[in-house]
């Protein structure tokens, strides 16, 4: 057991979809948002009697990449288990997940400020179906089930309770998404990233409260800020903090109690013998290592050492894969320091002003090179160039 010292202790359990073409255990195409409900499913992801799962190897490779990027120890064998519980979004009333031996363990990911956050485990599992409550979560008289999502591949990432503030939690999520983007295993438009957070504060003696189902990385900070304040306020008013599970209501911006937790839930895990043990050979792992792209933290190092730009600039450029790649191309022709200044300050500012992402606008490296050549040769002044940039 860790001895806690900080005012706030946060650990995250993050579920992220991975961007394969087909589902984890059947050949169904993964549905897109515009697909009709229940149009992308088959006997396997509907849990029909007699259907059997067959593992999607591509999903394993994606998960392996993530484990490697998070500096995890890789298990030599991939073993799936059945996590049993009854719920209407479960096609089989058990979820195929991993238990004793996760794919990756003992990893780490650094925050922007260099603080190291431990990763306890990274494992693979299937997504349940989605439940649609036509009149809202609490008020609906009935629920619709859409199996399009049922069986989609998910990766669960469990952190050590190393995060000391909602701000750090947000930064962790940002760093994680950067990794996912660099690895090209997450579809930023279609993919869903969800988190459950364990939050406790010093004043309560670190009584652990779990917040379930926070969707989207921007929501995490909001939910945590609310929850920390709620716990502080309860104590201030002489109330107790209970070990419990709460849900985040993003519309109201509050959390509400789902159930008090006396004991851990018992999912009665057994090995799923419908699936065979998949050996992760050194050869396979090495092949994947070779295919690994340079990651943001490698890029920062390279930009500082090779291009001699400031670490702070390098971090901003590297935080977004497309920006980093553009910088590398521009820096071949333009003084890197000038290029860095322009990309990280002016380009980012224009993008932010217009609320656009780089891939959404038509600026490419050629435009930047042409423009910056003019600046270099003093053909135009900085201010003219800035105006020029705004027009494109």
């Amino acid at each position, binding site marked *: 057991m860790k001895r806690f010292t900080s005012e706030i202790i946060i650990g995250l359990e993050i579920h992220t979809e991975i961007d394969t073409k087909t589902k984890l255990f059947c050949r169904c195409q993964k549905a897109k948002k515009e697909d009709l409900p229940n149009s992308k499913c088959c006997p396997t992801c*509907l849990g*029909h009697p*007699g*259907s059997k799962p067959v593992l999607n190897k591509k999903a394993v490779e994606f998960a392996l990449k993530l484990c490697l990027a998070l500096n995890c120890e890789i298990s030599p064998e991939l073993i799936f288990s059945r996590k049993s519980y*009854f719920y209407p979004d479960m096609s089989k*009333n058990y979820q195929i997940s991993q238990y004793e031996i996760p794919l990756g363990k003992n990893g780490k990911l650094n925050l922007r400020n260099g603080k190291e956050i431990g990763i306890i485990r990274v494992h693979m599992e299937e997504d349940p179906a989605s439940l649609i409550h036509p009149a809202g979560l609490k008020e609906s008289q009935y629920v619709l089930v859409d199996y399009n999502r049922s069986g989609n591949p998910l990766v669960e990432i469990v952190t050590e309770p190393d995060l000391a503030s909602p701000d750090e939690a947000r930064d962790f999520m940002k760093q994680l998404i950067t990794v996912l983007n660099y690895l090209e295993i997450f579809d930023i438009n279609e993919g869903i990233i969800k988190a459950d957070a364990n939050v406790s504060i010093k004043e309560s003696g670190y009584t652990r409260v779990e917040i379930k189902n926070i969707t989207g990385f921007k929501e995490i900070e909001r939910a945590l800020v609310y929850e920390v304040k709620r716990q502080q306020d309860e104590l201030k008013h002489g109330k107790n903090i209970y070990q419990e599970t709460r849900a985040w209501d993003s519309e109201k911006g509050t959390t509400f109690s789902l159930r008090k937790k006396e004991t851990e839930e018992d999912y009665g895990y*057994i090995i799923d*013998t*419908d699936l*065979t043990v998949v050996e992760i050979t050194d050869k396979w792992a090495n092949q994947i290592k070779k295919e690994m792209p340079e990651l943001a933290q490698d890029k920062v190092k390279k930009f500082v050492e090779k291009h001699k730009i400031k670490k702070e600039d390098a971090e901003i450029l590297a935080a977004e894969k497309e920006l980093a790649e553009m910088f590398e191309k521009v820096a071949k022709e333009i003084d890197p320091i000038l290029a860095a200044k322009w990309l990280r300050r002016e380009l980012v500012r224009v993008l932010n002003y217009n609320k656009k992402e780089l891939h959404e606008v038509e600026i490419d490296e050629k435009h930047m090179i042409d423009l910056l050549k003019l600046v270099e040769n003093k053909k135009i002044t900085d201010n003219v160039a800035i105006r020029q940039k705004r027009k494109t």
Partner: protein
Amino acid sequence: MDNIYDFIKKVKNNEIDIVEHTYKLIEECKEINKEYNYLNAISEDLALNSAREIEIQLKQKAKIKNKKLLGVAISVKDSICVKDVESTAGSKILQGYKPLFDAFVIQRVKEEGGIIIGKTSQDEFGFGGFSVNVGIGFKVPKNPFDNERSCGGSSGGAAGLSQKLSNHIALGESTGGSIVEPASFCGVFGLCPTYGRVSRYGLIDFANSLDKIGSIGKTIEDVALLMNVISGYDKNDSTSLKLKNENYESYLKKPVKGMKIGIIKEAFGTGVEREIEKNVYNGIEELEEEGAKTEEISLELPIKYGIATYYMIATSEASTNLAKFCGMRYGATEKLEGSFNEYFTKVRSNNFGDEAKRRIILGTFARMAGYRDAFYLKAMKVRALMINEYKKAFKKFDALVSPTTSILPPKFSEIEKLTPLQHYMIDVMTVSPNVAGLPHLNVPVGFEKNLPVGMLLMADHLQEGKLIQLGSAVEKGK
């Protein structure tokens, strides 16, 4: 009586009107069913359509003469999915359920010109050894030699129908002995293959690491022929073995001279009826007369721990497999009321039989935190030890032999008096090869008090051929 090859030849040569033959056969099934309850569903339309299809193809001289099962009636254990034919695994909770797809073995049977005649009765989900644990509202199949006695289980309907109906082979399924035990009680051959040799795709699960589809037939030829059709790799079942197909028929009538057979010491003596022993030894003598060499071998682990290991693993897996039945997507429903939890509970309470409930409770308990290590995980370890012990024996022997059952088919009135534990002990001979995934065969070796006695032969993984070779030698000796 014609053997199955003569029958197929006649179909190919147009010496039999296959449509009329099939029609009569279906009528015969209905007649048999009135007394014996071997079929939960008779797929009359599917059977007659298949027969008509064969007739048309024969007229058009289409290339169907190489089809291995042309015109042969195939019955299917109810737990194996047949597209558009009610497939319930003998449970009320699946009443009315018509699968959207054919099991791999059904696809193969259809491709080879087999005619599917219906779904055979069984213990609910395979939970039993006497076919008395049928689902709510289902009828108990009866022994073909004495209708006051059990035909064994869980593939009871399959074995009984194999005894009663000619030119027919049955698809059975075994988790802990459900092919050989009913085959023994009904006096027919039953072959349960190596785990993974036959795809489980389309089999309604009992226990995934133990379930095997196999064949039951009146003759060893029947059994070998159907095994040839259904074995082989299937990409839809992750546990299907990627191996070259074997021609099991090539082992028929192959001399057994010089083969080594181990007689399992612990399987004779205490607890086994003397008349059964006598008949099994007759069977062993027949093999010796054909030149096989026999020797006694002690196998303590399988007899001592087989039952406990089997029931731990089987119920743990079964309790998760049965979770999906909750009245939401298919099968039985109840009035929609209350929360999902209340609704699921009502559906499961009203539609599972007592034994299904017992096994769900046992299995759920065995895998709960705090008990997992002592029960489920321990059983997995014992299973590994049992496999080692068998493997050691098979370094020396081509096959091992024991009685298939320790008793003659019991009367229903006797079964009623058994406690659940006594009921489970019936599987003592058959569970261990099942736990170890070994192929095993029931060979009818004689009659006692007009009731059949069976001998159990088991071989190393993937050595089904040797079993057919030995089974064929005993049959020849008759």
